[in-house]
């Protein structure tokens, strides 16, 4: 059930604030499980936020971003009802996506 992203986008005084929570373990590869086996690294490496089709934020991440990561950013030019989409891709090539409308 990863791959999910919760996105909300709120317009206020001409600035749209995007907040996204992503379902992802963000494993560093440095931890061991209860049986002492190494837990393989698995973390989001890239995130983009788009407004309609325009990129409003791009991020490169390492494994030290927290589990189930949170990202907030702000842009101008949005209008109520416009689409905001957040996508991620991780080090294993898997992806997640979430969309909302500006309110």
């Amino acid at each position, binding site marked *: *059930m*990863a*791959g999910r992203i919760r996105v909300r986008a709120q317009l206020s005084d001409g600035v749209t604030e995007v907040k996204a929570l992503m*379902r992802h373990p963000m494993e560093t590869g440095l931890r061991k499980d*209860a049986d002492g086996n190494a837990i393989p690294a698995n973390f989001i490496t890239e995130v983009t936020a788009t407004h309609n089709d325009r990129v409003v934020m791009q991020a490169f991440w390492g494994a030290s971003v927290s589990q189930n990561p949170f990202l907030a950013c702000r842009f101008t030019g949005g209008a109520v009802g416009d689409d905001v989409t957040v996508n991620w*891709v*991780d080090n*294993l*090539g*898997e*992806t*997640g996506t979430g969309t909302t409308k500006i309110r």
Partner: protein
Amino acid sequence: MRMKSISLRSLSLMGVVSAFFVLAACADSSSPEKGAASEIADVALANSVYDALMASTNDKGQATKARLRQDEVQEFCSKPRSDYGDAERANAIREARMALVQMPADGEFIGDWARGAEVANNGRGLQYSDDPAAPNGGNCYACHQMDPREVAYGTIGPSLTNYGARGQSEVMLQYTWTKMWDTHAYNLCSHMPRFGAQGILTEQQLKDVMAYLLDPASPVNQPLEAQQEN
């Protein structure tokens, strides 16, 4: 790129075939384990709480169900603080505890404060999640303030900052040692563990914590300003 599915991972966990777990009460074949009191006779219990806990737990790692058996101190102290009652029995238990305290074999009370600091900071030991081969901690900071520069200290016990000001008279050494060895010798039903009597800490670890408390060079005995000047 494929969509990731944690649900599959979670579901596969459910498919792990479990080791059979025993709900029925186990026989009390309690072999002596690290941390178990050996000198205290177990109180015979035909106790509903004990039975419920026996039926509700599984042995795990070093934390076996043998630990659910109470000794006399534990049984006497398993009540709300306001309700210890029976002063005569309390006194008898306290005196019995005092008689069992073992002072350091070589008469030396003071070890190395730096090693004592590690013991005081270490909260691990004797949990089923802990490595039985690693030394146990004293976890002193969970309950006591010690080095005044440490911000993360608990308040269940009194502050021990500047404890060394009490000096190192024989009386003081024996008192401090006894308090750590078996707190109930002085203060029956104290919340503090019996670090010596229950074998939680070794004699050397206890000496090192003694030094951490009493050595004038220990950070416990350095006022905040002193360190800031350094």
